[in-house]
């Protein structure tokens, strides 16, 4: 499998709702590798890459939290100016739209995590351009 499992968690835009989720990760000793929140006036989606996504999904579900396992693509790039632009430009030229993206540093390299509207096509572009596609094994802690 060439995609990563990301947790998408639906939370109310209100104080105290995020900590409830984080405490569940903490209790289960699941490490968060990267996360991002996008919010609207009423609600937010908290997106998380973690050490055990399927286990985390089950735990969150059991606690009645609205959560979805989402397939995302992660590519590693050099931590230098211009590399993100190169990666995105290849996708863009192929007509792949990015729905959302976030980035973080992992072992000295940059990681771009994204969801696209056509993941099969995105995977083709990534392969054709010899981009470094990451999978779950790359994130074993």
């Amino acid at each position, binding site marked *: 499998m060439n995609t990563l499992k990301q947790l998408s*968690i639906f*939370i109310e835009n209100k104080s105290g*709702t995020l900590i409830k989720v984080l405490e569940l990760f903490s209790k289960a000793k699941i490490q968060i590798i990267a996360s991002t929140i996008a919010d609207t006036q*009423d609600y937010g*989606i908290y997106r998380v890459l973690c050490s055990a996504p399927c286990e985390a999904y089950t735990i969150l579900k059991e606690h*009645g*939290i*609205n959560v*979805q396992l989402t397939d995302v693509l992660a590519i590693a790039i050099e931590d230098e100016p211009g590399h993100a632009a190169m990666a995105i430009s290849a996708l863009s030229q192929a007509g792949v739209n990015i729905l959302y993206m976030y980035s973080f540093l992992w072992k000295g390299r940059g990681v771009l995590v994204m*969801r696209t509207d056509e993941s099969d096509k995105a995977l083709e572009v990534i392969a054709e351009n010899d981009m470094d596609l990451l999978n779950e094994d790359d994130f074993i802690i």
Partner: protein
Amino acid sequence: MKKILPNDNNPFFDEKMETMTRAQIEALQLERLQATVQHCMNSPFYRKRFEEAGLKPEDIKTLDDISRIPFTTKQDLRDTYPFGMASVPLRECTRLHSSSGTTGTPTVILHTQKDLEEWAAQVARNLWMVGLRPDDVFQNSSGYGMFTGGLGFQYGAERLGMLTIPAAAGNSIRQIKFITDFGTTALHAVPSYVTRLYEVMQSMGVDPRRDTKLKVLAIGAEPHSEEQRRRIEDMMGVKAYNSFGMSEMCGPGVGFECQEQNGLHFWEDYYIVEIVDPETLEPVPDGEVGELVLTSLCREAMPLLRYRTRDLTRVLGRTCPCGRNHVRIDRMRGRSDDMMVLRGVNIFPIQIEKILMTFPELASNYLITLTTDEDNDNMTVEVELEELFTDDYRRLQNLTNRIQRALKDEILLTPHVKLLPKGSLPVSEGKAVRVVDKRTVYQ
């Protein structure tokens, strides 16, 4: 056919009826109640009801005997839809009004020609009471059609002899043009619409005090507070009088404020007014809040006995410096059922629930919150997501929009729809709290 009118300087439209003493009112009420109960024997519904209760018309010997008559409810009107409650043959009826029936079976109210004339006379009496005369120009900015505020005020204003403009609701710029071009002196509308008209007047550079001849507003059909009324009066530079009506009794005309503006006179030659505890259905003392129960005394086509209005109010007094001893009733303070009145539209939570249930994306819990924002009623519907079926905002927003549109089609106004995670809304033990009314009108 020329109708006889009082002299302009007479404060009363129907002096004999309006100035009766309490004893005269009660004597007339007993006489009319006995006649009405007898007449109700022509209604299949009431004949059966009386039989079940072991009641005969001749059992009504005093006004207190009204307590022997079973209550009539909205459900009874639905059950007898369309004509099962009529007390006259259909060929004697000349008008039918019907509720929209969005919450189930609609209801029908029938009128004979005499009913319509009596209805117009009540409205005319009200408008005369607040100083309107045949020289006045009356603009009715109320919905027409089945909504009784349209034809009810139309016929009443005409009965008084005013130049009457059936402007109907909406199109504010045209309304304001009518007001200035035709020299409108009196306007009937729901209070929130008056506020809207004022806003549009401001944007057009029209000052209601300087550029119009307005002096009287009749406002009703949606709950409003004393403060809201005063604000409307200050804005428009007029007197605003509270009007009460309900289609079951005829429509507008049932009760109206006199120039004292201290409660609505309910016309006791036309109705018997009771205030009862909505739980025990026993009468409550004057001054205490209870459910308004009305018995019509002059209706031919469809008299209703002890009709439970579900409106909560109280008796303020039975005398008045204006010279009318007809009971004064406080402005409506809420409902004994869960009906909400927003911007003149009646809405039941079940209507909202019914729509929400059609969305499989949603959990079953929901909460409706009503707020007042610059004198406008607003509704927020909070719903819970059953499953996070996407992590794409556009699809979540699309869901919110679809819910909003579906609700608008049902309740005719656009609520704010707030999507929440499952489990966010309070779960109540027993009967769920579905509506939180934070509007200032009931405070």
